């Protein structure tokens, strides 16, 4: 397949906060401005814009893509909004990659902006309508149900305990203490997680990422442009995404087959034969703590049922053999849905450039991965990056 090589050359992010004074447009503009400044570019250099943002119901603004376009530099530009639920933050850069890889454009600004706090009493309520309107909504489901059901199935299949899974939350919230955008950085223990409020057994409050406002942005450029902008481009070498059936109760939840399909697509493109050996650092999507383990297995970074052992052995710590969520992840940095996925892309970008500050993992990693997940537990989105 003939396509232009695409690099990430700049990145920007706002703080992730429970409720921001700024509007979604303003957050988008703040992150975009920082991304352009980080690589010495201006909006005039941007040929196309890819915007990611999650359900319109959060903001109560229909056509949210168009609403956010001004803050994202979309004025009189080829502009496109991406949306696959929680998978959006890694889906938007995949679309940006296409814009540049196709040869249609040499630059693309990818922006993800989210304002969840506008929805009252809680953005959870907006999630009810993702369930089937006839066969499921009359049962009054909450989003936490599907996580609780999936987590229970995952635990039962492999004999994993809640205490073991809580270690993911402990690790990620601690990692977030070194992230300047973090909303929930904290040093906690497994006991703290176990003693936090039970929301939907087996899910406790500290197993879950928070609702957040925030934005993130990256600048993509074709090879010949990237090399003029920076001597440290980070290449997007593989992209993949995959969608499973929306009849979610009719497939076994213990294993995310669609994440594996997405990962294999990205690995094939990047020429990765042994992901466990070649992917040195990863940001799997962690809206709930068990999801990090679930996704490590789907991403083929751990054998089925074995991710928990890597965690217990300390291999997924920042100074471990295979660091997972060195940023602090959704659990620690916060979870403004679409911006979270892009935050993960930015973390791998910084880590591969050796610019992650106190969060920097040792060993000068050359190859990393960011992944997001969403819709009705059915979409996986994956980007493989190398320096």
């Amino acid at each position, binding site marked *: 397949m003939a396509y232009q090589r695409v690099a990430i050359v700049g990145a920007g992010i706002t703080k*992730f906060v429970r409720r921001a004074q700024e509007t979604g447009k303003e957050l988008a503009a703040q992150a975009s401005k920082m991304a352009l400044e980080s690589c010495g570019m201006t909006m005039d250099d941007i040929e196309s814009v890819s915007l990611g943002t999650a359900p319109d119901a959060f903001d109560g603004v229909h056509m949210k893509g168009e609403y956010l376009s001004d803050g994202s530099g979309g004025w009189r530009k080829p502009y496109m909004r991406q949306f696959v639920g929680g998978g959006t933050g890694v889906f938007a850069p995949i679309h940006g990659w296409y814009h540049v890889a196709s040869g249609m454009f040499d630059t693309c600004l990818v922006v993800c902006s989210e304002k969840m706090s506008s929805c009252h009493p809680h953005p959870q309520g907006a999630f009810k309508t993702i369930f089937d309107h006839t*066969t499921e909504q009359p049962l009054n489901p909450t989003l936490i149900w599907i996580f609780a059901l999936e987590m229970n199935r995952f635990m*039962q299949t492999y004999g994993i305990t809640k205490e073991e899974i809580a270690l993911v939350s402990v690790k990620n919230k601690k990692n977030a203490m070194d992230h300047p955008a973090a909303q929930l950085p904290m040093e906690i223990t497994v006991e703290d997680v176990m003693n936090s409020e039970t929301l939907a057994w087996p899910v406790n409050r500290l197993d879950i990422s928070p609702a957040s406002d925030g934005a993130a942005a990256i600048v993509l450029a074709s090879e010949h442009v990237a090399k003029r902008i920076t001597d440290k481009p980070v290449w997007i070498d593989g992209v993949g995404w995959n969608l499973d059936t929306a009849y979610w109760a009719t497939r076994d939840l213990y294993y995310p087959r669609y994440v594996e399909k997405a990962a294999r697509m990205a690995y094939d493109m990047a020429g990765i034969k042994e992901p466990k050996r070649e992917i040195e650092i990863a940001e799997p999507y962690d809206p709930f703590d068990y999801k990090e383990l679930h996704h490590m297995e789907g991403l083929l970074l751990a054998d089925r049922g074995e991710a928990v052992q890597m965690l217990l052995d300390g291999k997924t710590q920042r100074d471990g053999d295979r660091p997972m969520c060195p940023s602090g992840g959704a659990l620690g940095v916060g979870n403004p849905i679409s911006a979270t996925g892009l935050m993960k892309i930015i973390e791998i970008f910084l880590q591969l450039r050796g610019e992650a500050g106190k969060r920097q993992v040792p060993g000068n990693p050359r190859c990393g991965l960011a992944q997001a997940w969403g819709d009705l537990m059915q979409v996986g989105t994956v980007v493989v990056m190398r320096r």
Partner: protein
Amino acid sequence: MELEKFELGATPLKDSAIKEGKVLTVAKKPNLKYAWDNGPAIGRYLAELKEGRIIARKCNKCRRIMIPPRMFCELCWRPTDEWVYVEDTGTVNTFSICYVNWDASRIKKGEKPHLPAVIEIDGASPGMGILHVLGEVEPEKIKIGMKVRAVWKKPEEREGSITDILYFKPVRG
């Protein structure tokens, strides 16, 4: 670039600032109403629920008996072929004990927790489950693999809805 060298945007608002009126907000409660049509597959499913029966659709290519029923097989991508009645019993595939309502409010003191479960229905293909709730069971006694049976509303109270099944309860013995 390092994030630490930038002044990051987003100004956190405190709840107190909103309560004290220091931040002006505009509130709006949309009053939208929807009436969803259900098509031939789910339409028949609801009609049969009203009669106290559960019906599925079969694909004669992959031979799956699917519930909820659908007019097309998403695996074979072809029309399904037959209506098949299945049992109102099944097996708990996974479950939760939930203290939170749909809007994230907490259940009231003394209220029983919600008991959502995925139930694999007997007579449908293995692994074919539906989302429903459990009842007449102590939460701590629920187990994955437990056999359960539907508890129906009285015939005169049924309206052609998934809630015509009140809940699934354990099958004794």
